[in-house]
């Protein structure tokens, strides 16, 4: 399984997916095919190693969820990206961005997705236990959004 074979199998199986060839294969996936693609990557591409899952806040361009999965035996690394709606803090509407959770596919995604929820406010559908992991449960706001100032006061300690 080399990068070219991986790119070709992806191209024929998934239509809406754009692939950027290169050492790590960067694949941008539409939101609705997110879990299906992850399942496909795990089974047929052999990318069983779940490296990490995180998010990037592109302000108006919306939130982008990034996940890296690897095939350890053939050293193939896949970087999956999907673009969500902008976070409520910027775009003004109150409904939080939603994304399909990868926990049914990779058990390692449990804590990573809780951290994304904690830091960006992305709600992952049918995640077994979606609550804040790093900050206290009574924390307001999601710190890693660009609209959140780095030095916001937090009584009574700051």
């Amino acid at each position: 399984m080399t990068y070219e074979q991986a790119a070709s199998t992806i191209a024929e199986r998934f239509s809406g997916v754009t692939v950027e060839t290169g050492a790590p294969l960067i694949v941008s996936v539409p939101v609705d095919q997110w879990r299906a693609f992850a399942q496909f990557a795990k089974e047929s591409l052999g990318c069983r190693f779940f490296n990490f899952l995180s998010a990037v806040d592109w302000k108006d361009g919306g939130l982008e969820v990034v996940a890296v999965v690897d095939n350890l035996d053939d050293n193939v690394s896949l970087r999956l990206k999907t673009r969500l709606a902008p976070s409520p803090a910027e775009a003004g509407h109150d409904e939080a961005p939603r994304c399909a959770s990868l926990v049914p596919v990779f058990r390692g995604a449990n804590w990573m997705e809780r951290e994304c929820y904690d830091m960006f406010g992305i709600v992952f559908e049918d995640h077994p236990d979606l609550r804040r992991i790093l900050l206290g449960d009574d924390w307001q706001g999601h710190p890693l959004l660009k609209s959140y100032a780095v030095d916001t006061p937090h009584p009574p300690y700051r």
Partner: protein
Amino acid sequence: MIDTAVQSQVAIDYSAGERLTMNMGPQHPSAHGVFRAILTLEGETVVGVDAVIGYLHRCHEKLAETLTYAQYPSIASKTDYVAAMTSEFAYVLAAEQIGVVDVPKRAQYIRVIAAELQRIASHLLWLGTWCMDMGGALGGGATVFLYCIRERELILDLFESLVGARLLYGLFQVGGVRYDLPDGWPQQCRDTLATIEQRLIEYERLLEDNPFFLARARGVGFITRELAEDVGVAGPLLRGSGVNFDLRRNLPYSSYGDFTFSVPVEPEGDCFARYRVRMVEFRQSIAIVRQALDRLPDGPISSRPALKSVAQIRIQKGEAYARVEGPRGEVGCYLIADGSPKPYRMKWRGASFSNLSVLPHVLPGHKVADVVAIMGSVDPVFGEVDR
């Protein structure tokens, strides 16, 4: 006299059948740091684990967006403060991959020497704190702990003469290394490695001939190969569960390809397998440092020599995910640059975060005493877990 009636009266309710919820709280004598495990016990066996982390969340990723490429490496070393060298390595490597900055050969060799010495020091601390967990701070474990710290001090002296700091260094910068090896350092380094190699044989005799240690380590904390890959566990835990993957050999970076070393793999996946993997890694790191010292090339130590001051480094738009093999596993830095002197987004993939997230899947069914032994063999560092 300050009023001590501070905490509210918490009555222990024994009504919920024989299940007891016990709190292995953030202030924990085992020296890993601030981690709270809410264990649901049935008698002595653990039934459920709810791990509460975040007590050391120091906003690394938000601060990375406000600090320039020259400032952040000094804070990057505080993510995994037991292996500060490899933490800085990841950030600097990512910045160099985006900015296509070439690093002179001598700087790459010094980086490899520093990273491998740091791996030996970190594994020494792991062996000490693991035995202290199992043996007690006022018991047998403390003896092994103090022996390991005695060896670790030798390596910290080496780093002190190289960089000037004992625990958190500023050796790495974008484009190379900040300090060159002082004269007489290679010889001092070889002597230290020789003494450590002798002492390792002593530790193995002290621990592996001791039936109590074997009873506590063997057959405890099984991580199957499938669970290891599924959760993204890395480093000695992955190799302890039979996966033959090491970043230094599979995806060589910073001229690791020039050195010959073997990657230890143990199929069982219990605490003793991880212990064996790390003991072999000690010897492989010593071999790598010796090869690097023998073939150390001359030349400049940084491709951007004017970088001594906090000069502005501008890196053009782009993104990169640099992966470094730290003592606890794969330390990754996913960096997005937008041409300004500060990165747009920096995601830190800490090895301990994924290693720790395997605990709720492994712990149920073990005794309370095993919980501590397994956490010791996972060797989490909470600067890296909470970032």
